[in-house]
């Protein structure tokens, strides 16, 4: 091998091989870094910021101008709810039950003289869907106190919008739970006073919530014989970015509250971006491969006489191709390993900011990146080896 390499290495251009190596390194780094970024960031869109958290979608029917004019109710029928529950993505479906009676509330804080009165409404969902952890979220028949959960949005709207502009004090959640809300419920010829107690704030449910137990009792008591058809549903799903969900919702003209589905769109854009980055990386890798093959073909041309003589004294084309194949594959292997390292290094630049933004974030599985690096290495090496082998085989006959 030593003597053979002594002959074959002549005319090896360090300049050209360096060119290949750098181009290959850049191409591979872009590919592997693109993949790694995708693997790292995609879970943020897909699974929220915690891996095993349940995700909920709140569905309603589109409110259209025509529908409004012709008195379409926009409520979900039993059949529709059943069909939705049978979808693969739906792990559970809960209904929003609206109050069928009149509710008015007066809000006051003792000692401040502040009293506000308003007409309002209640809604309820099954307790399992309520994202407020408290033992006060219970209603016993006959009790005059109703636990209430408000959307956190309302508090934010007051604190950061209204209170800010009017120079009013901001209210903490703890302070608000001290509020006495006077509630008057009337219907079915009855009218009773209750006391509302704010027990928590919900990020998920954008409504004024009371326990389902109270709602069932109150609807029966103040509006007997009437049935509440839900106009909104809450659906538990594993992955809100699931494409099936988007398709199902579009097919049935259901609308989704909040931005959960935006994650699906963001994922889609991320995929497109990753695709573009990967395409650029693959292009550069292919170009680098082209440079290498040109360089080696030139080398073979320059060493043609020598190689023909070697073939004539009994060396096989295989034996002559081997050193060049080893050179190409070795360089490619080095570039691949370095690219893996570089991709890791580049990844560490966003590690910090991602961890700060999403505390639960963890680096994605490296399997895909390793797999891609391995596949690319094998594919490019095989291509190299075949082309070199063929070039050498062509020297067999002088013509």
């Amino acid at each position, binding site marked *: 091998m030593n*003597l053979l390499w002594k*002959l074959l290495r*002549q005319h090896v251009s360090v300049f050209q091989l360096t060119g290949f190596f750098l181009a290959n390194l850049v191409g591979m780094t872009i590919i592997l870094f693109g993949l790694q970024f995708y693997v790292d960031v995609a879970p943020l869109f897909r699974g929220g910021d915690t891996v095993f958290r349940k995700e909920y979608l709140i569905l309603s029917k589109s409110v259209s101008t025509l529908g409004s004019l012709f008195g379409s109710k926009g409520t979900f029928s039993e059949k529709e709810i059943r069909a939705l529950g049978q979808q693969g993505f739906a792990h559970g479906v809960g209904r929003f039950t609206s109050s069928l009676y009149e509710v008015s509330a007066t809000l006051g804080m003792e000692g401040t003289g502040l009293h506000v009165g308003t007409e309002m409404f209640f809604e309820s969902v099954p307790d399992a869907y309520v994202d407020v952890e408290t033992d006060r979220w219970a209603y016993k028949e006959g009790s005059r106190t109703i636990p209430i959960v408000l959307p956190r949005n309302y508090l934010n709207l007051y604190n950061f919008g209204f209170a800010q502009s009017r120079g009013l004090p901001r209210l903490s959640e703890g302070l608000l739970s001290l509020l006495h809300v006077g509630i008057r419920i009337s219907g079915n010829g009855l009218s009773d006073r209750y006391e509302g107690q704010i027990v928590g704030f919900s990020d998920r449910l954008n409504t004024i919530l009371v326990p389902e137990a109270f709602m069932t009792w109150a609807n029966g008591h103040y509006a007997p014989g009437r049935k509440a058809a839900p106009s909104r549903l809450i659906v538990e799903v594993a992955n809100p970015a699931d494409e099936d969900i988007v398709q199902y919702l579009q097919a049935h003209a259901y609308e989704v509250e909040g931005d959960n589905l935006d994650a699906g769109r963001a994922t889609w854009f991320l995929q497109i971006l990753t695709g573009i980055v990967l395409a650029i990386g693959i292009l550069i890798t292919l170009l680098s491969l082209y440079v290498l093959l040109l360089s080696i073909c030139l080398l073979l041309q320059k060493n043609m006489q*020598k190689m023909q003589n070697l073939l004539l004294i*009994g*060396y096989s084309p295989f034996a002559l191709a081997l050193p060049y194949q080893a050179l190409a594959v070795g360089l490619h292997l080095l570039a691949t390993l370095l690219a893996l390292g570089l991709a890791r290094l580049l990844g560490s630049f966003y590690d910090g900011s991602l961890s700060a933004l999403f505390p639960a974030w963890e680096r994605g599985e490296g399997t895909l990146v390793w797999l891609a690096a391995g596949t690319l290495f094998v594919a490019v090496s095989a291509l190299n080896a075949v082309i070199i082998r063929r070039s050498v085989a062509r020297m067999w006959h002088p013509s």
Partner: protein
Amino acid sequence: MVFKEQTQVVSDVWRQELSFQKGECCLVEAASGTGKSSLCSYIYGWRDDYEGTICFDERDIRSLRTNEWVHLRNASLSILFQDLRLFPELTAWDNVELKNKLTHYKTRRQLEHCFECLGIADKRRVPVGKISLGQQQRVAFIRALCQPFDFILLDEPVSHLDEANATAMAALLQEEAAAQGAGVLVTSIGKQLPMNYTKTLHL
């Protein structure tokens, strides 16, 4: 054949049917340009621009695959090229080693003996490009002996050698061919390798 347009060619080889046997020692004599080297190239499988058929033991050599040729050139068929085909950047010894490493046929001692017999022992470490043509011819000859062979082709082996060296080469060749029971085919344009030829052909 090479001279198919020239219908008047008078030759013992071209446009004829003939065979070489193992153990034979055949001299092919011809003027320059009558196709000696072409003949060697055809038999050695280097060129195939001829008409007609060349067979090794009934097998048409056009049907031999690359790996079969590689095997033949390592185990059955040796050649001393007219243009030597040495590697000028390698030393005389390395040129020989390059072949011997493939076949592991000769021991170091045997090779040293060959170098000594042919009077180039002192040139072993000199790059081939820096020694005379006559010395190069001897290096190429030693290389041709670094393999087992049934036939050895020597294309004008003594064109640059004096009488004494030609005799030494002939002795080595005869010894080697006899030991292997091989056939020898030598070409010449006048100056001959001094051997006992069993057959002389005029190209």
